[in-house]
């Protein structure tokens, strides 16, 4: 346990007045306050140090004791036995809000690990900083649930990503943000998902949409075609006289519903009828024949 030079921490001389201590403390507090330094562990430590220095030096009784024993603090235990006992009593009666991490071992040893009386009641507990992270995935990745390991601020976080997560969806992982201060709760981790779609399917919620080109003859006479769905090919019967841009719904062939196992959206197919081009003479003749029949 090392001696802590509180004067050095506040950057003041040993003869500093109360006003000078206050000014120095305020200046440093403005620099290292946790609200102004989110996710900055070094600033958090520094803020604790300057708080501790201020607690000691701005209290005349504590400052006197600190100045008297200073580096010889180990021998100062007999400083005031009665005071020590009174402190221990205070400790036993339980100041529940007190966090032992709040002060250094040096402070605890010298002042009994309690908040000086003048400062009681002002016990700022800070919730840790909320962290934000972004995770890019492909649409194919989020068709099934999967595990990922994310590194946020040097910490590895194992993540289960349920199938069907939406583009832009944010999930909150409680307590995985910055560490709380003075016994405050940890912050939360917010992960925003960006889902890139490089497939032929358009996704809207749980439904998928796909355009299928249909040749003129199949659209008129009907037939059977094979189309791709997200999880494999399926055969489709085309009704005779199928119109351009008509739609069919394949129930349950869409995207998984988020956090509902076994539930899927639909796949909506739109037929685009392809007019034949580069016709040969025979074809033109036959179409003319058809035209004659139709106009009779």
């Amino acid at each position, binding site marked *: 346990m090392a001696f802590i030079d509180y004067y050095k921490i506040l950057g003041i001389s040993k003869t500093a007045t109360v006003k000078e201590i206050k000014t120095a403390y305020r200046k440093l507090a403005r620099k290292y*306050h946790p609200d102004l330094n989110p996710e900055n562990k070094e600033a958090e430590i520094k803020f604790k140090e300057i708080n501790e220095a201020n607690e000691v030096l701005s209290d005349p009784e504590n400052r006197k004791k600190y100045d008297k024993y200073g580096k010889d603090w180990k021998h100062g235990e007999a400083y005031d036995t009665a005071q020590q006992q009174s402190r221990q009593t205070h400790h036993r009666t339980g100041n529940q809000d007190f966090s032992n991490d709040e002060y250094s071992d040096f402070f605890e040893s010298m002042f009994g690990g309690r908040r000086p009386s003048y400062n009681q009641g002002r016990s700022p507990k800070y919730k840790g900083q909320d962290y934000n992270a972004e995770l890019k995935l492909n649409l194919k990745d989020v068709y099934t649930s999967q595990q990922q390991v994310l590194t946020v601020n040097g910490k590895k976080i194992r993540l289960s990503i349920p199938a069907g997560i939406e583009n832009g969806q944010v999930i909150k992982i409680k307590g995985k943000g910055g560490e709380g201060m003075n016994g405050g709760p940890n912050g939360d981790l917010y992960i925003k998902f960006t889902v890139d779609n490089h497939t032929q399917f358009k996704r809207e919620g749980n439904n998928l949409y796909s355009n299928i080109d249909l040749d003129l003859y199949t659209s008129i006479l009907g037939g059977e075609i094979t189309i791709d769905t997200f999880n494999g090919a399926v055969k489709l019967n085309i009704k005779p006289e199928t119109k351009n841009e008509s739609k069919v719904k394949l129930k349950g062939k869409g995207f998984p519903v988020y956090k509902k196992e076994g539930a899927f959206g639909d796949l909506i197919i739109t037929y685009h009828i392809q007019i034949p081009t580069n016709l040969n003479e025979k074809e033109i003749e036959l179409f003319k024949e058809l035209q004659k029949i139709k106009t009779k």
Partner: protein
Amino acid sequence: MTKKPLISTQILCSHYNIEISFVDALNKMGLIEIEIIKQEQFVHQDQISDLERIIRLHHELNVNLEGIDVVFNLLEKERKLRNELNALKNRLRLYENE
């Protein structure tokens, strides 16, 4: 009918030991939004963490409201930059693991 998660400014003032004029000033500065329902003022629960930060900055560091506004804007910029950095690091990690 769903209940809105609103908290009366009177309750907030008594809980945080602040004046109602302070909450009004924050509202005028655009630092928090107040909703008025049946002539009573309310603050949405999502704004409570901001309110707590404002109180700490104001009382512990003597930052005036204009200063807090500047601080919040700069912190928001910093947050966006941090997010961008995190996203880039994650993306880089994905490539590195390939």
